[in-house]
């Protein structure tokens, strides 16, 4: 690992000032950033540890929303009684990320800031139409994820919390890559009554995306059978050593049906 200067600011204002510098990165759970630094896939001059800022890991149910702090660790979300009651699909998703040690360190904010095309949380954010709250503005999930490892975040912008609207029902179904546990394909479905959302991770060449054909069919009737006959096109679907586009496209359909069934449809 190349060396860097380490900073541990006590509040977001100080953190934002530090992060305004070039070649500077925030450090949350470190489960993506540190492996990348170790392998010298990336290097930085300054690391700004968000771990010293109090309150960033709070989890609260607020009216018709669940508000999860950016520094909430995956294990915290998986076991939180508040999450389990308000949005059990999110707790179940967090429980499936990586392994126990990764879940004890990795955070919600780090996962969505990184926007790995096979990560789980982006599917929940997009599938629930969440709002990403930063120190500068509120960004709807539909405008946050911008392609492979790209987001709408600007320099010096820090995710503070994610506001998840509570659906009537929701579920996430993941076909894990047997080696890495990342999603080979993962589908998050949520039924809000007036709207149904279906978000797919692991499959898109540009990262997480919404399956609008499926959303329209499920809005008519929220049942797995509504998805019969909807063929997922292979254009824009990832092909790699783990699975080709045709296989992934097929899996999207299978996982979507399972998710609808698990959500009670």
């Amino acid at each position: 690992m190349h060396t860097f200067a380490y900073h541990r600011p006590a509040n977001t204002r100080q953190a934002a000032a530090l992060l305004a510098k070039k070649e500077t990165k925030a450090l949350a759970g470190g489960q993506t950033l540190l492996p990348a630094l170790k392998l010298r896939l990336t290097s930085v001059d300054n690391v700004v540890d968000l771990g010293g800022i109090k309150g960033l890991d709070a989890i609260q149910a607020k009216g018709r929303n669940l508000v999860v702090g950016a520094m909430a660790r995956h294990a915290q979300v998986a076991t939180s009684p508040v999450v389990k009651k308000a949005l059990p699909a999110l707790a179940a998703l967090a429980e499936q990320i990586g392994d126990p040690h990764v879940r004890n360190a990795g955070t919600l904010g780090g996962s969505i800031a990184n926007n790995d095309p096979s990560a789980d949380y982006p599917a929940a954010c997009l599938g629930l139409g969440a709002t990403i709250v930063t120190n500068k503005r509120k960004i709807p999930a539909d405008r946050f994820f911008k392609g492979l490892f790209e987001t709408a975040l600007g320099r010096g912008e820090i995710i503070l919390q994610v506001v998840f609207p509570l659906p009537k029902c929701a579920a996430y179904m993941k076909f894990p890559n047997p080696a890495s546990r990342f999603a080979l394909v993962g589908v998050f479905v949520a039924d809000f009554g007036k709207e149904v959302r279906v978000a797919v991770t692991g499959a898109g060449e540009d990262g997480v995306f919404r399956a609008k054909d499926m959303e329209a069919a499920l809005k008519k009737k929220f049942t797995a059978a509504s998805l019969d006959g909807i063929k997922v096109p292979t254009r824009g679907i990832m092909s790699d050593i783990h699975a080709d586009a045709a296989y992934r496209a097929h899996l999207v359909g299978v996982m979507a049906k399972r998710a609808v069934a698990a959500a009670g449809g």
Partner: protein
Amino acid sequence: MPTVTMTVNGRNVSVDVEPHTLLVQALREKLRLTGTHVGCDTSQCGACVVHVNGRAIKSCTMLAVQAQGADVITIEGLANGSKLHPMQEAFRDNHGLQCGFCTPGMIMSAVDIVKRKGNDLDEHTIREELEGNLCRCTGYHNIVKAIAAGAKAMKSGARA
């Protein structure tokens, strides 16, 4: 050079580290606690698992400076003098190791599983919970048996 002050296995220590020194390097190279192993470069094998503030983490994927003020337990902190911790004893009794390289991480993870999931662990739970610990020798079978036995033995008043 930053100084990290932490508690390691109940002892207060201060170590001088570089900003990019990993916790596992501080433990092994500065404190000479070489029971914690490094088995990979990719945060996948779990040979380096220690407990930080009561949570099992991969010490190869945490900066030493992040452990400022923390309470750290390593494999060396489990035994009571010459008396092995019941989980260590169970690995010995059940042939839960061959070369032993993965064993410190396996045992630290096992103790953490018991803390979170209790003393009666079924095989499925143990296998799922070992997702982040790789073993190249045993085929896992005896590790799973050892953890089930160790978990039960921990119930009879042993400390974790």
